[in-house]
């Protein structure tokens, strides 16, 4: 093959496909070979097979004459909590291990209609519960930069290793961005409701949003354009047309006013490396002529705890349909009650069971006011603080995670409550504001990250700042985390 899709942007792949510079059949073969290899190294997929990839290639060949396919032949990875009617959707849970949805998520149809090629369904924590490992029925995903470390998610690993150009995964308390941070890729969590959640198996409906992973800003912009189409029959989505992201990127806004919360360095487990990198980046932004202000957001630090509590209550309720009556795993019991208990005891990981038990407790009348109602009030407060800060500033800047990809041997988080990985990310879920994680690369070290949060509906500002930084950092773009090119 003359061109290796892994080195190309989505736009270039689509052009090469249209210009017949990439043969679909060869693309399919390469993808399957590399996926097999990556799977062996990283355990990033739950479902992928030659037959499905062949089916995808056939479908794309039918699309070839259609000149409007902006994602023609673009390899896509999909987190396994987003429904597909032709492949199992397991949410990495034993309970769901054989679940075949009778429908496909709207986002998947949108991308496929635009020519995207679905490689397979990627591994994640059970029901996307955090990024810290230990709950997937299909085991953890290894980080392509360091196999001893966690990748956070298969979707992020697929993009980092050059297998997928784009990936979709969900973000409940920051999972999408945290995994992007560990794997050194871009992540965009759009405004709540900007992208359809139809077909997403969500653990916490009010927090969770599907987001996009990619290697360059332009790819994110193209994907967002395809996905951000209002859904008139779904009142939980934004009913406004999205702006033309790609053309906004051509003339980027350069006078961003950026706010940094003074509590940015108060995160528990904040690594010196992350702290130093962040400080260095603040100086860089200054050199670029951007105005950086420190702001006080008194409740920003509580976001992770509040989001965890709300997430647990919603998870308790959202996962109550997993009872063994209509689908999924079922154990036998002497009566209905026993069947429920056996089914759910064996169908869920102990980590998930602890979490939903916490949610069940938090919403009992006894604790409702003390915890849940107070949490709801704090949620409003955190959102208001963010909103007034972003009325004065264009963007809020923090690191994405307080630490880099945690090693399997000494995981930073997972036992602690709330998960310290969510310190910076959870506020965007509570408020529904869009956020973007931007990767920073260093020679011989794991990638680092910056997180930008924009006001509601201002995804364009996030793409513009990312595009600006991308140009600055273009010289130190690294090679892929995993060398799959020879495969």
């Amino acid at each position, binding site marked *: 093959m003359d061109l290796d899709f892994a080195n190309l942007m989505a736009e270039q792949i689509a052009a090469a496909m249209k210009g017949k510079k990439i043969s679909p059949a060869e693309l399919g073969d390469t993808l399957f070979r590399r996926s097999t290899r990556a799977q062996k190294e990283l355990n990033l997929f739950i479902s992928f097979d030659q037959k499905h990839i062949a089916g995808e290639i056939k479908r794309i060949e039918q699309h070839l004459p259609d000149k409007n396919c902006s994602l023609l032949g673009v390899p896509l990875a999909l987190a396994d909590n987003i429904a597909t009617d032709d492949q199992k959707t397991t949410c990495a849970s034993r309970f769901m291990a054989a679940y075949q*949805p009778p429908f496909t998520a709207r986002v998947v149809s949108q991308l496929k209609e635009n020519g995207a090629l679905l490689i397979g369904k990627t591994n994640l924590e059970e029901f996307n519960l955090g990024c810290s490992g230990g709950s997937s029925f299909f085991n953890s995903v290894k980080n392509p930069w360091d196999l001893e470390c966690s990748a956070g998610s298969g979707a992020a690993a697929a993009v980092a290793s050059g297998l997928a150009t784009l990936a979709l995964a969900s973000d409940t308390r920051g999972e999408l961005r945290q995994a992007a941070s560990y794997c050194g890729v871009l992540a965009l969590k759009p405004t709540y409701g900007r992208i359809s959640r139809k077909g997403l198996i969500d653990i916490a409906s009010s927090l969770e949003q599907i987001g996009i992973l990619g290697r360059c800003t332009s790819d994110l912009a193209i994907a967002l354009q395809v996905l951000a189409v209002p859904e008139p029959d779904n009142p939980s989505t934004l009913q406004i047309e999205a702006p033309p992201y790609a053309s906004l990127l051509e003339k980027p806004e350069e006078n961003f006013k950026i706010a940094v919360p003074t509590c940015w360095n108060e995160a528990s487990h904040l690594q010196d490396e992350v702290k130093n990198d962040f400080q260095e980046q603040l100086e860089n932004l200054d050199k670029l002529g951007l105005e950086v202000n420190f702001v006080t957001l008194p409740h920003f630090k509580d976001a992770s705890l509040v989001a965890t509590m709300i997430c647990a209550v919603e998870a308790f*309720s959202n996962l109550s349909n997993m*009872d063994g009556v*209509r689908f999924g795993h079922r154990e036998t019991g002497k009566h209905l009650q026993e069947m429920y208990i056996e089914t759910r005891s064996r169908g869920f990981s102990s980590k998930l069971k602890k979490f939903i038990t916490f949610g069940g407790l938090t919403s*009992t009348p006894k604790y409702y006011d003390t915890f849940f109602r107070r949490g709801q009030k704090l949620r409003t407060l955190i959102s208001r603080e963010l909103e007034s800060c972003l009325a004065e500033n264009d963007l809020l800047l923090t690191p994405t995670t307080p630490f880099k990809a945690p090693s399997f041997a000494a995981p930073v988080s997972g036992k602690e409550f709330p998960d310290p990985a969510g310190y910076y990310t959870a506020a965007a879920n509570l408020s529904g504001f869009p956020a973007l994680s931007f990767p920073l690369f260093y020679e011989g070290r794991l990638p680092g990250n910056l997180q930008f949060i924009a006001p509601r509906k201002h995804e364009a500002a996030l793409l513009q700042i990312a595009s600006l930084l991308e140009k600055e950092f273009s010289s130190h773009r690294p090679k892929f985390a995993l060398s799959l090119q020879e495969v």
Partner: protein
Amino acid sequence: MSTFEAVIGLEVHVELLTATKLFCGCSTAFGATPNTQVCPFCLGLPGGGTPVLNKRAVEYALKTALALNCQISPEITFDRKNYFYADLPKGYQTTQHFQPLGKKGYLTINIKEETKRIGIHQVHIEEDAGKMVHMGDILSTPFSRVDFNRASVPLVEIVSEPDMHTPEEARLFLQKLRNTLLYIGVSDCKMEEGSLRCDANISLRPLGSKGLGVKTELKNMNSFRAVYRGIEHEIERQTRILQEGGEVTPQTRHWDEETGVTKAMRDKLVAESYRYFPDPTLPPLKISEEWQMEIRSSIPELPDSRYTRFIQDYNLPSYDADVLTASRELGDYYERALDTYREPKNLSNWIMSELLGLLNTHNMDIVDCKVKPHDLGNLLKLIDEGTISGRIAKTVFEEMFATGKKPEAIIKKKGLTQISDEGTLLKIVEEILADNPGSVEDYHSGKDRALGFLVGQVMKKTKGQANPQMVNELLREKLKK
């Protein structure tokens, strides 16, 4: 032996007459093949989508709350009631817990010539669960099937205050409620199809006391009669326990129609926790003043005010007014017939005896009646004008009822017009007198009954078509001579 007073509160679930379910586009039609009116959402499948609130359902519920004189919340919330049961696909029911649509309403009932007000605690919207189909008895069924066609069908729940004290009051309240809901057209209220379901909370207290005793909840009463009998039985059961010095166990009980007893289903010793919290997929909904006004203006005249109006405007006895307003359709029928025939009491008599009599015999409803109100009015006019006799009119009406034909057509076709020609009648009268000398003699010896016999003979000869008044007069005149 102490005397007890029963305290009864009702919880009534009513299916709203919307074409589609509360949060998805599935049909709500009754009687379809099980599990054919379902989608990923109402089946509770993972990733099955987010709820889209059926505005019509809210409209109907608002109409209900207004018709029941409730105070309306300016903003309502939808909340999740979390519990596990095989008929509950999502593992929670979306209902209204924190801010229900209506509160503090009332309905009046007429009992023993008095009007009594029964408080409505609240009116709220919720989704129905699926339907369990047991193999025989619920307690001994080896396995059960579930039909999810009913899952997520919109309901209003109407919770009364514990203001009722006898089975009769409970039955009257439920009938009045049903009648009101039928008037406003929000539900078909068919107890046998489950579109109106009633649970009763029953407790006893010493007569004169203000406190509340331990209550039981009674379920599975599928007719008005069952409500009456179930409550009656439960009061008797609790009375027996208390009189023997025992204690009532707080529990849910099941009315068994066949054996006529209530059976314990489950104890309620531990307060159930449903972990209510606001549904994160449904934002609060504003109920604006304008919307309330709009809905209020769409509410037709309700049974109470129609009842009063019938008595005042048409001079009807309260019994007639009660019968005629018992359903919206019957009241409408009466008033439409009245447009043609302006004798309210005469018309009322005819409807109550003849029309309702035939409907009853044929087990039919007024909406199925083939006789047009206008035609009934005309029939009564024909009697008053002397074209036909009242007796012939009944025969004509029977045919109208069976065929829906106009009275004039039937009379003409069968030649039933009344004979009011004096010459014709006189001839017949003379014949009858000649044929029955015995009766003539009886009459003259003071036996008045003989006149009736002779009238009957004339009517027989004329196949009932003779004008009875004229026959009477002619006979008396002839007999004088």
